[in-house]
């Protein structure tokens, strides 16, 4: 039982980070139909910007985090505006866009490695004191991460459900032509969506790096497996599905790691992903993409 609870604790942290990342990833798919496999590279680049601001220019951690978030937003916007959009205008098959995304991913990840080198980095903050709830242990840092995730995801919920922009985003995702006929400037909405999802990507990358402890330029490369599993579990293009999928995958991988060899914890995610692709490619509840 204690193994279960302590691994459940780890699972909640993983789930919190994963939920932030997956919601951004799935929103990009929702409005542009692109599986942005360069997402992981944007995450890690943002994390390094935060690291640089925090450790080298000695900015306050929260300000530095803001820098990382801004990096994610700007880079994502630029990638969509200047790479994905022009390619999509040519009506190419989705597989070509995936190759382009992989190309961008290589440039992002290894461009960063060329700059920072192959060594490992670590944020030099202390994880803080240890808190103990119901058999689960959390450091202050971990609690902060979970707190950030809960607050940010609540904000995303508010945005999508109660704001004009959020409704326009969901409308654009559901039926772009009809949204335009209603006067929605969908290009602007798509750009905004990429900025917001990019901000989530930057935030997720930074907290991912903090949570991991040590990281290098290629640390987020495997993360795409978890992201894809969480997204397909909830249905591609479904932000709420993504939250649910992320929690399921996050908890499942960590809890299983408590019982089997932790080195195989991604296997659960992999099995889920392949199973979803084979049997329910539009999610457990979903039929098609909807935001």
């Amino acid at each position, binding site marked *: 039982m204690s193994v279960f609870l302590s691994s459940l604790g780890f699972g909640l942290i993983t789930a919190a980070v994963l939920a932030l990342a997956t919601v951004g990833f799935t929103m990009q798919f929702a409005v542009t139909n692109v599986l942005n496999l360069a997402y992981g590279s944007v995450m890690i680049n943002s994390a390094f910007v935060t690291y640089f601001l925090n450790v080298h220019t000695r900015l306050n951690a929260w300000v530095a985090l803001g820098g990382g978030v801004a990096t994610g937003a700007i880079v994502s916007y630029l990638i969509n505006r200047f790479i994905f959009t022009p390619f999509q205008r040519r009506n190419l098959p989705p597989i070509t866009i995936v190759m382009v995304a992989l190309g961008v991913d290589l440039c992002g990840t290894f461009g960063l490695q060329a700059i920072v080198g192959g060594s490992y980095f670590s944020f030099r903050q202390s994880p803080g004191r240890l808190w103990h709830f119901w058999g689960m242990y959390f450091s202050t840092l971990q609690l902060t991460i979970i707190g950030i995730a809960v607050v940010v995801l609540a904000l995303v919920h508010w945005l999508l459900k109660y704001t*004009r922009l959020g*409704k*326009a985003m*969901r*409308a654009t995702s*559901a*039926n772009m*032509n*009809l*949204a*335009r*006929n*209603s*006067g*929605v*400037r*969908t290009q602007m909405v798509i750009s905004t969506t990429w900025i917001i999802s990019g901000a989530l990507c930057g935030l997720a990358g930074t907290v991912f790096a903090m949570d991991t402890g040590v990281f290098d330029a290629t640390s987020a490369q495997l993360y795409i497996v978890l992201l894809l599993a969480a997204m397909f579990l909830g249905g591609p293009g479904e932000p709420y599905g993504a939250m649910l999928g992320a929690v399921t995958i996050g908890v499942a991988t960590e809890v299983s790691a408590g019982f089997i060899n932790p080195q195989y914890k991604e296997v659960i995610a992999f099995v889920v992903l392949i199973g979803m692709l084979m049997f329910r490619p539009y999610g457990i509840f979903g039929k098609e993409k*909807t*935001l």
Partner: protein
Amino acid sequence: MSGDLSTPGQILRATGLSAGYDGRAIVHDVSIEATPGKVVSIVGPNGSGKSTLLKSLVGVVPVLGGTVNVGDADITNMTPERVATLGVGYVPQIDDVFPPLTVKENLDIGGYLLPRHEVGARIEAVLEFFPRLKTMMSRRAGKLSGGERKMLAMGRVLMLRPSVLVLDEPTANLAPLVATQLLEEYIRGFAEKGSTVLLVEQRAKAALRVSDWTCVLGGGRVVLEGPPSDLENNPIFVESFLGGGAPRR
């Protein structure tokens, strides 16, 4: 029923219009005019270019030749979102609502161009017109019945306070009674309140009943046009639907 639902109509006019996809014209040299307070209908067999014509008017399909005007404004090849700002409301034949959004949210998007503080009152006005929607505001549009869905689609476009309504086969896949109600009560009602209504309708006789002017399209061209009373007994009219020869050029 609130009288402020309609907005004074504007003339919608297409002159020598050709339109189609990939530079290939499907509609050839069509001139058509819809005026305030009147229902103008376009009928014709499947594949005669009716939907393409409507789409080219509202900016969804490229115009290859000719012009489209609303009032004094030239809207030829304007983007759909700008056409909407000029008060032209378009209801497509299919994909006419946002299925994952609730009825309320669909109406909100319909009122996207309105000043924020007017949206609530406008929804009230639209609900007066389609009272059946009142009870299902928080239901997802994808879960509505065919008739309810069409009402929502019309409600969504009314939110815009349109001066011109462009409707693509609003009665397709509706039960006959609902279709009749939609045409004779609601759509006729819009015109009577002063709106301009341009309608594509597959049920030709039903279209004649509600229209002030009807164009018959065949092979992408206007084959025949006139007031319904003239068309009804015109042998060419029946023929162009039920055969006996290819549509006349």
